[in-house]
C-alpha cells in the first residue's frame, strides 16, 4: 500500500467537515466540564455527608470507567428511561460529564493550594461563607488551575473519536466511512493524525505560555 495523493486530497474536504464536528463537540464538552467540575468539587466539600459521599463515589466511578462504555450507556439506555437527546447532544454530555470528574480534581487541588492562612484571615474578618468563596478562595484557586484545565480540553479533543460509536459523524467516523468505501485507511487515518496535531499543538503551546506566566520558570538542576 503506497500513499495515494489523489485519494488523500479527495478525502480532505470530508475530513474537514468531521473536524468541524470534533471541534464543536470539544468546545461544548469543555464548557460543560468546566461548570460541572466546579459543582462536583463544591458538592464533595459539602458539610453534609448525604451530599459529599454520593458525589465522591459517583465521581470516582465515572473517572475509572471508559468513556466509550459510558457513551454506549447514555446513547442506548437514556432513551429507555424517556430521555431523548440527539446523538451529538448525548456525546457532548458524555464528554462533559466524563471530563468534569477531571476538572473537579483540578479545582480541588487549586482550592487546596490556597494557603490555610487565607481561610483563617477570611474568618478573622467574619466574611460570610459565600463571600469567602467568591472573593477570596476562587479568585486564588482558579487561575493556577487554568493550564491543567487547558490540558484536559486538549485531551478531550483527542478522545472525541470515540463518539463514532454513537453515530456522531466526527473525524474518525468520516475516516472509517471513507476507508470502508474505498478500502484505503492509510490516508484518512494519517490525515487525522496530522489534523489533530495541527489543532492540538498550537493549543498546547498557548496553554504552556499561560502556565509560564503563572509559574516561575524552570530552573537548572
Amino acid at each position: 500500500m503506497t500513499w495515494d495523493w489523489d485519494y488523500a486530497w479527495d478525502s480532505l474536504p470530508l475530513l474537514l467537515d468531521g473536524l468541524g464536528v470534533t471541534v464543536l463537540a470539544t468546545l461544548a464538552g469543555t464548557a460543560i466540564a468546566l461548570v460541572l467540575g466546579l459543582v462536583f468539587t463544591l458538592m464533595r466539600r459539602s458539610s453534609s455527608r448525604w451530599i459529599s459521599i454520593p458525589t465522591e463515589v459517583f465521581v470516582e466511578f465515572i473517572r475509572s470507567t471508559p468513556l466509550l462504555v459510558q457513551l454506549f450507556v447514555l446513547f442506548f439506555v437514556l432513551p429507555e428511561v424517556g430521555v431523548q437527546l440527539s446523538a451529538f447532544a448525548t456525546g457532548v454530555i458524555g464528554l462533559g460529564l466524563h471530563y468534569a470528574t477531571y476538572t473537579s480534581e483540578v479545582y480541588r487541588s487549586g482550592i487546596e493550594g490556597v494557603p490555610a492562612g487565607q481561610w483563617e484571615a477570611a474568618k478573622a474578618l467574619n466574611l460570610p461563607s459565600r463571600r469567602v468563596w467568591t472573593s477570596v478562595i476562587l479568585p486564588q484557586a482558579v487561575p493556577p488551575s487554568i493550564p491543567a484545565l487547558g490540558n484536559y480540553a486538549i485531551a478531550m479533543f483527542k478522545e472525541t473519536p470515540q463518539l463514532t460509536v454513537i453515530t456522531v459523524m466526527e473525524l474518525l467516523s468520516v475516516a472509517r466511512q471513507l476507508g470502508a468505501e474505498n478500502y484505503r485507511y492509510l490516508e484518512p487515518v494519517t490525515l487525522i493524525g496530522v489534523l489533530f496535531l495541527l489543532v492540538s499543538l498550537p493549543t498546547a503551546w498557548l496553554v504552556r505560555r499561560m502556565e509560564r506566566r503563572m509559574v516561575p520558570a524552570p530552573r537548572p538542576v
Partner: protein
Amino acid sequence: APVDLTAQDAGGDLLSRIRDRGEVNIGIANESPYGFVDSAGRITGEAPELARIIFQRLGVERMNPRVTDFGSLIPALQVGVFDVIAAGMFITPARCKQILFSDPEYQAPQTLLVPKGNPKGVNTLDDIVAKKDVRVGLLTGSAETTYADALGLKDRSVIFDSVFSGLDGILANRADAFALTTISLRDAVSKRPDAPLELTPAYVPIIEGEQKLGCGAFGFRRDQRVFRDAFNAELNRMRANGELLATVRPFGFTESEMTKLTVAELCTDTSS
C-alpha cells in the same frame, strides 16, 4: 499469534506454506450469521463453516479464527495478520482493487428493520427517499451506506458501528428504519424475539437504474491468485453438488440466496 513475515512474499506458495504449518488464519468480523461467536462461545457462521470444509479438502487441518472490527479486515489481511477473510464480505469494484475475491457464496436481497407496525410505512430505500422525515440507520462501512449516499440520503443517515447498535438504535428511536441484508436482520431479530420490531419484505434496491444485489465472498491478498483459484475450485465444486446450501442453511440461508454470479462480473465497475 505473531504475524507471519513470510506471508508478504509475492507468488503462489502461500497455500503450501499453510499446508506445512497445518494451520490457516482466517479473519472474521463478528457479524452473524456470516462469521461470529455464538451464544455458546464457539466461532461459527456460514463463512467459517465453509472455510473449514474447504481447507480440510485442501489439506489444512486446523483453522485459527481471529475476530476483528469489520473495518480492519482488509488492512489486516494486507499486512498478513491473517490469510483469508471469511466474513461474507460483499464484492464491490472498489474492494476488488484492494484484494482478490473468490466467487460469491451467496447473494443477499435487502430488508428494512422497523418498529412493530411500521409506523412510517416504509418498505424500501426508495420509500425513505420519498418520505423526508424518515431517518435511515446504516451499518458503518456497509454497502447500504454507499446506496444511501447515491440516493441522496446522506443528511438523514445515522451510522451505527454494529448490527446490534442499529437494533438498539431503532428501539431507542435513534433512527426510523435500519437498512441491511435480509439475512443479517433476520438473524439479529431472532436473538431479540421480544423486541417490538419487524422486518419489511425482501427487495433488491435499484440504484441509478441498476439492480444492486450484494454478493458475499472470501477475500485474499492480491498476490495470492494461485491460492484463491485453488480455494475457488473447491467452493464451486460444493456449489455444484449442493453441499454449499446444506452447509449454510442452518444460518438462515435459503435457495433464494444462492447465486450463479461470478467474481469477474461483480468486480466490473459500472458506475464510472
